[in-house]
């Protein structure tokens, strides 16, 4: 008995002694499940200007920094903190100097203006801590007047190389420009760069205009105008600002139009006989098809990116809710299930989310949800937020915010889909109902 016990004890002790060593025979392995969410520090030292490109070099590097900082995903290391100076585009980068100021990404570039006035801009993106280039160097050539677009294109490249998803800086926004008091507000269509620069008016304010929507290629704009006394849908060619009315029945109201992803079809609402339903129309032939036939109000339709489905709002349940139906017609399924009223749904260009307006407890919100209605997340809250539109990369939402009171004015705001980086978009006067173009 004693001998057996001793043998067992010896076996146990031998095993215990061997265990720690056995646990350390491989590499130390740990799982990291928590991190931080903060802007990534970057530096854009002034591009090297040659010829007469000195001012353009400064302007372009400043605009690239502004684009990246404006996303909320990046934080600029100010030039005053830089240790290294970039004096030649081809010189090696002193990574230690940039590490010292905690710049994790570095953008270097050079600008040249030749005798004919052509602007040539070269740039490189560096991963400072890896000590290597992200992607490869690239060059843009354009006119001096087009320096902003060149800067936006470079910023898009930098954004894409660091985050792994497309940018949205070289894009434009069409919106309704508003002037005058609330009871006599003049509205006309305006178009601008995504950051508010280069505003141009597309219509005059002689008649009320609503809900402009870009085509998938950005060359046309749908909008609703009261020019004829009834709301009618027009399509405007952006290149020459010519327009034509889409054919609809007389004495009916058509509104809330949007393009299909292939740009050949328009989905819209049509009110006839006191009932509002959703229709589609082939732009080329003018033939239309009724998609819903309910006694309730169906409006604000929006195609999914693959064109297979349509999301819209309806009050068929007694309150405004969101529904999804096949673009070929058929039964619609309700996807919104929270308290309050939902409206103006817009499908994300990525196809994974639907943005919407929600009214609940005397507050308006911009929110996002999965396409099946799950994971609803409210991003904003104010007296009046409405009309979301997606950035081309599906990461940012722009919308209208109107302040309270007789002196209240509408303005454009943008917010990241995480709810961070809420900021006002600079516009010339009041602005509402934005529509974001695709990348140019």
């Amino acid at each position, binding site marked *: 008995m004693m001998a057996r016990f001793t*043998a067992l004890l*010896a*076996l146990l*002790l031998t095993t*215990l002694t*061997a265990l720690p*060593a056995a*646990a*350390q*025979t*491989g*590499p*130390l*392995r740990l*799982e*990291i*499940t*928590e*991190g*931080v969410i*903060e*802007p990534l520090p970057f530096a854009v030292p002034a591009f090297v200007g040659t010829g007469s490109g000195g001012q353009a070099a400064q302007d372009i590097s400043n605009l690239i920094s502004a684009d990246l900082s404006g996303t909320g995903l990046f934080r600029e290391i100010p030039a005053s903190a830089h240790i290294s100076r970039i004096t030649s585009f081809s010189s090696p980068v002193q990574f230690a100097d940039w590490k010292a100021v905690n710049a*994790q990404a570095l953008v270097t570039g050079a600008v040249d203006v030749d005798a004919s006035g052509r602007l040539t801009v070269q740039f490189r993106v560096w991963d400072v*801590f890896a000590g290597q280039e992200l992607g490869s160097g*690239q060059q*843009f*050539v354009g006119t001096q007047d087009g*320096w*902003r677009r060149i800067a936006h294109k470079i910023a898009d490249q930098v954004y894409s190389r660091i*985050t*792994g*998803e497309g940018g949205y800086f070289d894009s434009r926004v069409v919106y309704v420009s508003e*002037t005058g008091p609330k009871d006599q507000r*003049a509205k006309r269509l305006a*178009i601008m760069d995504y950051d508010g620069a*280069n*505003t*141009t*008016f597309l*219509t*005059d*304010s002689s008649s009320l205009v609503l809900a402009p929507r870009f085509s998938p290629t*950005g060359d046309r704009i749908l909008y609703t105008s009261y020019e004829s006394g009834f709301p009618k849908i027009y399509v405007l060619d*952006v*290149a*020459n*600002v010519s327009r034509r009315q889409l054919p609809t029945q007389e004495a009916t109201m058509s509104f809330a139009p949007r393009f299909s992803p292939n740009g050949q079809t328009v989905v819209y609402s049509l009110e006839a006989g006191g009932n509002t339903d959703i229709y589609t129309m082939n732009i080329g032939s003018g033939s239309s098809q009724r998609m819903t036939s309910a006694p309730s109000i169906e409006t604000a339709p929006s195609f999914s990116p693959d064109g297979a489905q349509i999301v819209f709002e309806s009050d068929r349940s007694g309150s405004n809710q969101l529904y999804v139906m096949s673009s070929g017609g058929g039964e619609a399924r309700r996807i919104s299930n929270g308290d309050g009223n939902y409206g103006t749904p817009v499908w994300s260009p*990525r196809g994974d989310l639907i943005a919407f307006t929600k009214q609940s*407890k005397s*507050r308006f919100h911009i929110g996002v949800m999965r396409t099946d209605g799950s994971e609803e997340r*409210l991003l904003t809250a*104010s007296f009046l937020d409405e009309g979301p539109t997606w950035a081309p990369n599906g990461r940012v939402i722009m919308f209208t*915010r109107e302040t309270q009171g007789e002196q209240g004015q509408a303005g454009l705001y943008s917010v990241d889909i995480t*709810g*961070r980086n*809420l*900021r006002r*978009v*600079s516009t*010339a006067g009041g602005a509402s109902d934005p529509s974001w173009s695709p990348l140019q």
Partner: protein
Amino acid sequence: MNTGQIISGAGHLGLIAWILFGGAFPTKPLDFDVTKVTAVSSEEYAAIVSRSNSPEQTSEISPPAAPDVPQDSPDLSSEADTAPAAPQPDTATEATPDPAPEPPTEAQEAEVTDEAPVIEPPAEDMAALVPETSQRPQQRPAERVAPQQVDPPAPDTAVDEVVREEAVPDETAETPREEADATAPEAAATEIVTEAEEAEVAAPLNSVRPKTRPDQLRPAPQPEAQPEAQTQTAEAPEPEVAEPAPAPATDTSSVEDALAAALGGATDTPAPSINAGPPLTAGEKDGLRVAVQSCWNTGSLSSDALNTTVTVAFEMSEDARPIDGSIRMLGSTGGTDGSASQAYEAARRAIIRCGARGFGLPAEKYASWRNVELVFNPENMRIK
């Protein structure tokens, strides 16, 4: 049944009866604290929410004037980007200027008198009404999100990953001390708080009641033992138990057989690799984990990259700094090659950045942490 059992039964019955009816269990209810609460109506709540979320809190950017003359479209061409130039809105047709704003009306002059207002002195022992909620503006949640909440540093404190008190020169000291500013980590919240969520938390969470009197203070509860310490104790090696027990004099053959089998099994194990050595304690492992995760920034990762788990291996020098050239991706799950590359870049930056000062691991256990494999799993970061 004998007499003893009868006596025992009677005694137990008596004891039970005394417990039930004799007052062993007092009927007096236990003391409990009563706290007055204040109900807030829905209108008042809406007013509170409205005040704390007005759009004026966001940064206002003065709108630039619209250009009078539409600019020509830039004629862009590129060697790498050959997309056709997009059509440009060259001009507005029949655009009419905005109506000029009406001039502001003249402000009425306020009537001012030289007589100072008479202030009634308060009556003695008059009770003063104090607001039940603080009127101070609420602080916005920190933009930075980290595993642990970090309060904003003092105004004169520089932001740094290392907490350091301000150092001033001391002329009386034998060795002069170098002057240095105080540093503290950047403020951080544990999750993203949207504007909509801010509105929900704008309601008062605590009433500002007077503090309890000192004689009612109860001793503070003892903090619970740290799990790390427990784990460290459990994992601490105990070399003294390694001594073999003396063999008994009897039945030596079976004992020797058992020992031979045990030792033979031990000698059959493969030779320890380069990492053989004393193991790291759980606390030391946690220290390394926390150091890396404090630099693992997922804020700029794409949605696809946030669905990608990457395993990264690297080697460390004896001063516990990662050797940059040794960092490599062993594998990835849940994403595309592109998203894995983005996730790996973020992981590599975290290792290099926070390893620059060394991870502070015990040198005597170098063999245990010389080679490291870290699995970066962003699942929790997707729902922040």
